[in-house]
């Protein structure tokens, strides 16, 4: 039961962190709750579909369908997070200003919210499909199935609580600084997703690793340890990264950062 809880927690945790940061980043935007919930619902639906077609996806594209699919999902999410960050840079100051004036409506958050809905959906889909496959296996194996299912639900609850705790923690940041902090977190999230995508493309043999591994930090910051897993979820940390992953991480971070700078006016956000 504990084993099942840990496996499910690990997957839900990653998606929950994304949702928590997105929720904090959209503070003050009207009806964001509905959008984020919509994203989660779409993601769960997508996860069920992906799990159902797991065999077909694995066999597609000469056996590397799974890698290409994962890389595509991660890259799409990274691009949308980058886009949101740039959008927020131009509208964030406005929203922050409006939030202090009670009862005033924020002009338009819908464009960015729809992008974040997709980001949340993709994050839930990717992690969720593994949870679905795991729980399916548990259910199919029969014996002690109910115990394992209880463990799975426990893990699910744990993941949701973690995301919620991160959200509450971020809200303690004064409004003036909140968007700066969340945009840095979203930028790192995007770069980490791009790096993970690069990992899948290397695995599919579509990209060279460049350096394999670039370093080995498994002895002092193992990826499966708690700090390692938090870093993996936030910035795509790996204890054996390839050079290509590092390249994707830095290119994405620099490209999104430069785009944010170029649209940002000298006024403080």
């Amino acid at each position, binding site marked *: 039961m504990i*084993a099942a809880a840990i*496996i499910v927690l690990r997957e839900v945790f990653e998606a929950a962190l994304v949702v928590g940061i997105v929720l904090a980043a959209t503070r003050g935007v009207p009806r964001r709750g509905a959008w984020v919930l919509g994203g989660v619902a779409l993601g769960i639906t997508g996860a069920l579909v992906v799990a159902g077609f*797991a*065999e077909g996806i*694995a066999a597609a594209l000469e*056996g*590397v369908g*799974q*890698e290409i699919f994962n890389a595509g999902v991660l*890259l799409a999410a*990274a*691009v949308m997070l*980058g*886009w949101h960050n*740039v959008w927020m840079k131009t509208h964030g100051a406005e929203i922050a200003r409006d939030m202090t004036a009670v009862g005033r409506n924020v002009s338009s958050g819908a464009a960015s919210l729809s992008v974040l809905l997709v980001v949340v959906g993709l994050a839930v889909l990717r992690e969720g499909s*593994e949870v679905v*496959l*795991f729980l*399916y*296996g*548990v259910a*199919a*194996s029969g014996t002690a199935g109910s115990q394992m299912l209880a463990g799975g639900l426990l893990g699910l609850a744990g993941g949701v609580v973690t995301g919620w705790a991160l959200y509450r923690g971020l809200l303690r940041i004064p409004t003036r600084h909140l968007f700066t902090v969340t945009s840095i977190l979203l930028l790192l999230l995007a770069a980490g997703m*791009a790096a993970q995508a690069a*990992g899948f*493309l*290397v*695995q*599919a*043999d*579509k*990209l*060279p690793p460049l350096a*394999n*591994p670039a370093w*080995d930090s*498994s002895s002092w910051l*193992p*990826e*499966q340890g708690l700090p390692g897993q938090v870093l993996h979820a936030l910035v795509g940390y*790996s*204890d*054996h*990264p*390839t050079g290509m992953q590092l390249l994707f991480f830095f*290119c*994405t971070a620099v*490209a*999104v950062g430069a*785009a944010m700078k170029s649209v940002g006016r000298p006024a403080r956000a």
Partner: protein
Amino acid sequence: MPYRIMGFLAAALLAASSCAVDKGPEYRLVLKDHRFSPAELTVPSGQKLRLVVENQDPTPEEFESHSLQREKIVPAHGTITVNVGPLKPGRYEFFGEFNEKTARGWLVATP
């Protein structure tokens, strides 16, 4: 802009997929009763190879290795191929994420 990165990525992908590369020899792993056999597989270092993982169990598994930087779902009664290497000589642990206690093994890359 992010779109520019996307364009760059697409171009890089196309370029990379258009050149046919030698994927190296095949090595077979079988998953049965949530155990890998052989649990220790000796492979050559310094060249690409293909790990063919056959799942004989009725439940899905995830083949995963932090040191090899690989993760891939193996459907129930399904077979997948994992591209590996070129490896430096050494021992690389892998495991089945859904049955981590029993499904464990090592890839040993010899000089």
